[in-house]
């Protein structure tokens, strides 16, 4: 039977190969699935993996959708590496959209004019502050009352959604909008500057790439980043070394709240240019998946963000081109994730054929090293 045998060292080759193996397996399974549903497997796979990249416009859409995912996931990576389980990025995203949108509306009220994007930095800054403020609630309750950040951040997501509803149905409703729940369209000057003509891609994407680099530096080259990660991996050692758990908590939550808020403001001032109840399509939650698929590493996150964006768009295309039901996309994504996670095992374990019963496996080297540091 198949046995898992621990490797002496985590395999580097597998680190690179495992996502590719997972992708290959998913492609295989998906092909079988399409065939079982009576659709041409090659065509189906093409729709999911090739079609979203078909042409400049299509690629721009993939990158546009990946931008908020990458931004949120970067912040979450800092959180998870610090062992702070922020599940409420969606709520922080919404507050960022609200704050950014509010700023844009206020600026419009003040009568600002100018070329597209002139006031965008202000809008984005407001978004960052909004997201941070929302995350601060979670941090405060965990700091002062030991309330689990998992629960508080999750509950705050629902509160944020209702807050957005309240604002667009009430005080911020467009008076010329026939009572429909939406704000006025923002002034051109508050929109994000366009990056690619004849596409919706904006400079927010470049900002996201810059953030990828910044976060890499923060996590792997800065003292603070180091402190956070030690705190996450080995809290006792961190305490012994004098790293403050409290300041790590606040840093992690404020950073991830700020990033999610930035993404939210970007979405409102980028493609949408107004606030509606539908600012987010679950970006905050999808970002969690992006974060893990990207192995909590900025570069991985960038790639994972693009991959997931492709899958989501591919799912839409599969409906209109192939007549595949929307439900299939969820099945597909779940499968891909399962396989990705399963293949990651290959990094620390080797698969062998062994005769005999359920002998236990040796402790893999990575764990020995980790426990040594604890």
């Amino acid at each position: 039977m198949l046995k898992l045998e621990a490797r002496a060292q985590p395999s580097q080759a597998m680190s690179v190969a495992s996502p590719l193996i997972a992708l290959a397996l998913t492609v295989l399974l998906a092909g079988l699935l399409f065939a079982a549903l009576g659709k041409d497997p090659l065509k189906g796979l093409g729709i999911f993996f090739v079609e979203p990249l078909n042409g400049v416009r299509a690629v721009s859409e993939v990158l546009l959708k990946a931008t908020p995912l990458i931004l949120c996931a970067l912040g979450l990576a800092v959180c998870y590496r610090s062992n702070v389980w922020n599940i409420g990025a969606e709520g922080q995203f919404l507050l960022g959209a609200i704050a950014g949108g509010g700023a844009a509306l206020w600026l419009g009220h003040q009568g600002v004019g100018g070329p597209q994007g002139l006031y965008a930095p202000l809008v984005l800054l407001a978004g960052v502050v909004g997201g941070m403020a929302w995350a601060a609630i979670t941090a405060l309750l965990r700091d002062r009352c030991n309330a689990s950040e998992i629960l508080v951040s999750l509950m705050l997501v629902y509160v944020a959604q209702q807050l957005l509803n309240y604002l667009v149905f009430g005080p911020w409703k467009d008076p010329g909008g026939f009572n429909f729940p939406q704000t006025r369209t923002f002034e051109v000057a508050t929109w994000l500057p366009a990056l690619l003509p004849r596409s919706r891609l904006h400079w927010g994407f470049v900002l996201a790439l810059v953030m990828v680099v910044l976060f890499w530096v923060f996590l792997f080259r800065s003292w603070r980043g180091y402190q956070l990660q030690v705190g996450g991996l080995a809290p006792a050692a961190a305490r012994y070394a004098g790293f403050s758990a409290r300041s790590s908590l606040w840093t992690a939550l404020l950073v991830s709240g700020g990033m999610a808020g930035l993404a939210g403001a970007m979405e409102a001032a980028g493609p949408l240019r107004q606030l509606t109840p539908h600012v987010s399509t679950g970006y905050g939650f999808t970002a969690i998946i992006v974060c893990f698929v990207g192995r909590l590493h900025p570069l991985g996150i960038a790639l994972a963000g693009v991959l997931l964006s492709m899958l989501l768009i591919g799912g839409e295309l599969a409906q209109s081109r192939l007549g595949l039901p929307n439900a299939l996309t969820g099945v597909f994504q779940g499968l891909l994730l399962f396989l990705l996670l399963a293949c990651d095992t290959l990094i620390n374990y080797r698969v062998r054929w062994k005769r005999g019963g359920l002998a236990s496996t040796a402790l893999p080297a990575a764990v020995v090293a980790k426990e040594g540091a604890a």
Partner: protein
Amino acid sequence: MSIPTKRALLKLAALSSLAAAAILAGCGKKEEPAPAPAPAAAAPAPAAPEPLKAAWVYVGPVGDAGWTFAHDLGRKAVEAEFGDKVKTSFVEKVPEGADAERVIRDLATQGNKIIFATSFGYMEPMLKVAAEFPDVKFEHATGYKTAPNMRIYDAKFYEDTYVAGIIAGKMSKTGTLGFVGSFPIPEVLRNINAFTLGAQSVNPKIKTKVVWVSTWFDPPKESEAAQSLINAGADVLLQNTDSTAVLQTAEKNGKYAFGWDSDMSGFATKAHLASAIADWGGYYKKAVKDVMDGTWKTERTVWGVKEGQNDLIKIADVVPEDIRKKVEEVKAGMKAGTFEVFTGPVVTNDGKEVLAKGAAADQAWKDKVDFYVKGVEGKIPSGK
């Protein structure tokens, strides 16, 4: 969680970029048809054997047995009517945000000549895409913005709810009606008001309580909302949400309710009084025919009982004869165009007169409904 080394990740990045470059190189040649006036996509001659491609954008799943389901029935009616001359497709569960624009644009690039968007939230995205595809016709449901190649259509659900109100006014023993509302948008407010007015035409002392569930679809929540209305004394319920939960809760409690968006008479033998439906097939067939005949023009079409787009069907046997007669009279008036639901005097529930005695409301008045009529309890959420 294993954290790969920098080298490993650089290798991964290199591999992926190679892969991406390969894909792009391979596809780069296959440029999309230029979005700007595309000569290749010039007016398809109706006489050509090429079937007309028509597409629908849905906000919910076609299996919701409610709003989207009704629209899909309309789409199927188009297929049945035109056979080989059309080729329809649809995309379901399209979120009403930034994604919608991409979906609509993709449908336009795929050669669809007429695209229907079945929810308010698609208005802005559709407007943006319409500007780029001047020879594709865009149809938006329940909105208010148009363009030379984009027009709007809507239904008169309030006619259904008025008639339902007539029945409810008679069947209610407590004099309190209940309404499970999704979101306080004008359409829903019109429905609540029409329901109340209809009931008051039979029993002027009728009161309506409203509970908002902040969703179009969440059966357990709709159940809970219905239960709380029943607990508060309502014994006839109407809803604007898309499942049978409210009806089934009424049945469980021995109260009455109506079906919404589809024939729900099979779901509750004792509680079901009637079902308010919308039949979009008629309009969709007309729209497609307009494109085929070249007679398509920008306008706003609001059809109701008169055109067969709305109706209240399957009226239960328990409804007494005199009410049935009144219902028939009102429907006949609607069909003849002589009966207007919103006819003055109409007073809001904080005493303001919004329609003078004898005056019949025009479309603009109906679009701006942002109040409750007298008899409806409470305040519109975050309404001013």
